[in-house]
């Protein structure tokens, strides 16, 4: 039974993943994606630089301050020429960051303006995984967008993500709950950021950005929460002994056996009678 449930669950999960990939993610932001639009939020992870963000020449975000994460906005799918200027210098000056970003239809994405490992401003588009998580679980994604070497992420002192480098991410599903997390230099116990409590709510995805600069000693964590990825549990096994079923079972069995007994007695009597008649 357990095996069967697992298989069914796996098949269901597979089917969901497929449909999510081609159509509408079951996220809370899905309204924006009904018509194929992408849902895009922007994270500013370049310390000390207030900026204006332009997309295809139009100002998308004015006075955007470091450490800020925008609410998701609906965006038409396509390729965007993103230019990020120091506050008030756009759109005709020299951008601090310029990059062409491909936004797929229906995607849930986060654009992160951040430092690369060497400390130069750059832009990375991350696609947020909004596929369902199993009941009781939460998704945790860690993104390394800091001017810092490779890191490990620990939960309760135990590494859960190893050797993560800028600008990469790692994702895992963990039991829902609060974890005490910190970021250490890869393979060491040298704490670079934290510790911090992360509230990983069931059926949600928590994205943690490690940002800032190790050299400038302003490394920090920023979290983004995306909801609506909850799924139903595999079932409810709410019985033990079969007492509720066995009332009838035992009654019919008793009937059957007493009938068998009656037949045996009748047969015995008949045989005796015949023998008596024969004698």
């Amino acid at each position, binding site marked *: 039974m*357990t095996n*069967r*449930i697992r298989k069914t669950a796996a098949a269901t999960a597979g089917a969901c993943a497929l449909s999510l990939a081609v159509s509408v993610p079951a996220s809370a932001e899905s309204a924006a994606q009904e018509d194929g639009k992408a849902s895009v939020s922007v994270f500013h992870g370049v310390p000390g630089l207030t900026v204006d963000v332009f997309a295809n020449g139009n100002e998308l975000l004015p006075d955007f301050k470091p450490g800020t994460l925008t609410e998701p906005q609906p965006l038409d799918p396509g390729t965007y020429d993103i230019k990020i200027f120091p506050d008030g210098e756009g759109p005709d000056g020299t951008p601090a960051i310029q990059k062409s970003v491909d936004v797929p239809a229906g995607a849930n994405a986060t654009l992160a303006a951040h430092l690369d490992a060497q400390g130069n401003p750059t832009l990375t588009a991350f696609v947020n995984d909004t596929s369902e998580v199993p009941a009781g679980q939460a998704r945790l994604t860690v993104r390394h967008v800091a001017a810092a070497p490779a890191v490990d992420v620990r939960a309760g002192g135990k590494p859960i993500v190893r050797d993560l480098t800028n600008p990469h991410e790692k994702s895992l599903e963990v039991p829902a709950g609060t974890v005490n997390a910190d970021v250490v230099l890869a393979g060491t116990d040298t704490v670079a950021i934290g510790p911090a409590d992360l509230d990983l709510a069931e*059926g949600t995805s928590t994205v943690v950005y490690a940002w800032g600069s190790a050299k400038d000693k302003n490394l920090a964590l920023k979290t983004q929460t995306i909801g609506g990825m909850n799924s*139903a549990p595999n*079932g*409810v096994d709410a019985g*033990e002994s079969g*007492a509720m079923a066995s009332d009838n*079972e035992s009654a019919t069995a008793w009937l059957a056996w007493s009938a068998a007994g009656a037949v045996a007695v009748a047969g015995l009597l008949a045989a005796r009678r015949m023998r008596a008649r024969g004698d």
Partner: protein
Amino acid sequence: MRSSTGAGRPPAAAVGAAAVVAVVLAALLVWSLRPSGTSVPSDFGTRPRAQEPVTGVSSGVLDDASGEGKTSGPASEPTALRVPRVSLEARVQDVGVRNDGTVEVPDDAEQAGWYRFGPAPGASAGSAVLIGHVDDRTGDLGAFAKLYGVRKGDAVTVARGDATPVRYEVTAREVVDKDRLPDDVFRRHGRPVLTLITCAPPYDREHGGYQRNLLVYAVPAG
């Protein structure tokens, strides 16, 4: 000599009687050996939907439209369940999921579990789920066995930790295969409903025990 040949050929009436008895016996045996399902109570009412079917909007939109109030602060946790007409009384503890992905059920068959990842009774949206054993390991019936006796219109009360009790009225009951629980049972959006779940026959020890779930639905009492 004649008598011995007579004993070898029983009278036609005796053969006929034996045949009848054999047929009855066979029928009884077949009846007793088939999975018992005769004590499953009948369904009534219709399962409360997230929305009236008339709206016909895709679920993605429904999620958004009605999901507004679902995370509005921590809801008060349920502490006790009562269905007075069938003398059902159970203390309620919160439960999560087991490693196999099924819902935890309190070991004590006299207690009910509230599925804490879903809405709480009294929440403005979604299906608040309470679960209880129909029987325990010793063969005694559990508190939720009384659900076999509920009727449409029965009053249900859920007491809460730091809020007034929530009152419901039973509107429907159904029995489903336990690997085919309706998606609606664990929905977190749409019209509020209280869903009570226990197990139902047939019981098959070789295949994980009870094969079906009994579901009772109650809507907030006006």
